[in-house]
């Protein structure tokens, strides 16, 4: 009510919020993150252009990590088809497709819903293969422990300069299809220079899913992230005893909580 003269008229009030527009997504992401870490799961958000080789890198990861005894899992997002999830299953990574329809990115709530019906708690490393897109996925936190961007050598050395937000979000850039370098006019130094102009702490690994080049270093990077997050010593069959969050998934959380369908 108008407090100046008490006339009873409505009044215009400026409400200061200074709040992130994605605050709701970030709450859902925090919730996912808590679940992953409590269950001893290293979750990674794998992003990159369509055709960068995200799925091929994961197939090769299954081969390269075989000696680690890790149980891998994935959800794989595409606008249409479950082709990638089928490929990952064949490679020995239990997977579920997330078909996004017209949506160009995953958000935390979509990832959360997709986890129902997936035995993600029983994995050691869980990949969230995002929609192939260097723009939209960059700004949505999904609850991952780290963002990995796959950038293939056929995409051009200046890609990071064109899509700075994506590379700013990356904890690691995997330069993929390195076996093709001898056939291309490709300058690795120029790509690394571009990355250093958009990432303050560029971390880069060169890999080839076809030849296996660099895959050991990638697996070592994953192992280091597991250590960093205190995800050590979990072995097949023990998870349910060690990690309380491996219990059946049913709960209500405080602000930003949700109901399960």
């Amino acid at each position: 009510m108008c407090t100046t003269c008490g006339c009873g008229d409505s009044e215009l009030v400026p409400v200061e919020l200074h709040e992130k527009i994605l605050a709701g997504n970030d709450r859902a992401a925090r919730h996912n993150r808590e679940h992953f870490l409590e269950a001893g799961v290293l979750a990674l958000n794998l992003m990159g252009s369509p055709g960068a080789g995200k799925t091929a890198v994961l197939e090769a990861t299954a081969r390269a990590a075989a000696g680690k005894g890790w149980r891998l899992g994935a959800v794989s997002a595409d606008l249409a088809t479950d082709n990638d999830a089928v490929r990952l299953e064949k490679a020995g990574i239990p997977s579920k497709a997330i078909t996004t329809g017209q949506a160009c990115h995953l958000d935390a709530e979509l990832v959360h819903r997709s986890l129902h019906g997936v035995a993600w708690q029983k994995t050691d490393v869980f990949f969230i293969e995002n929609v192939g897109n260097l723009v939209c996925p960059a700004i949505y936190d999904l609850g991952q422990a780290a963002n990995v961007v796959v950038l293939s050598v056929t995409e051009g050395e200046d890609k990071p300069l064109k899509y700075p937000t994506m590379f700013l979000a990356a904890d690691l850039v995997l330069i993929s299809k390195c076996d093709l370098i001898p056939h291309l006019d490709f300058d690795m130094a120029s790509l690394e220079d571009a990355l250093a102009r958009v990432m303050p702490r560029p971390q880069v690994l060169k890999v080839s899913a076809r030849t296996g080049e660099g895959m050991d270093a990638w697996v070592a990077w994953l192992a280091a992230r597991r250590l960093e997050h205190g995800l050590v010593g979990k072995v097949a069959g023990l998870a349910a005893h060690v990690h309380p969050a491996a219990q059946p998934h049913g709960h209500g959380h405080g602000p930003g909580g949700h109901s399960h369908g």
Partner: protein
Amino acid sequence: MHEYSLVEALISRVEAEARRRQALGVHGLSVRIGELAGVDPELFQTAYDTFRAGTLCAAAPLTLRFVPASWSCPRCATPIPRGEVLRCQACQEPARLDEGSDALTLDGIDLEVP
């Protein structure tokens, strides 16, 4: 085109705030877009104009403020020039992104309250 989903989130937030305060109307909102927020201001405006019809924001103009991205040294605060390698030449420290450079923020709403 994630601008549409962002505008959806924005309008839901504004409507929630309006309900909470039992507002009679929404008369304007202001949003800040950092250059590295991954959001195109023009697309955002278009998405807003498309989505606001039929919502509490139907008559509320959107004021957008664009914040250019800037980097500086976390130790000596020297600005890192645009386009340069993101490392302080003097301190050899990795650069720090200045506040607001990558933020997408709902700054405020003008609400008509009883």
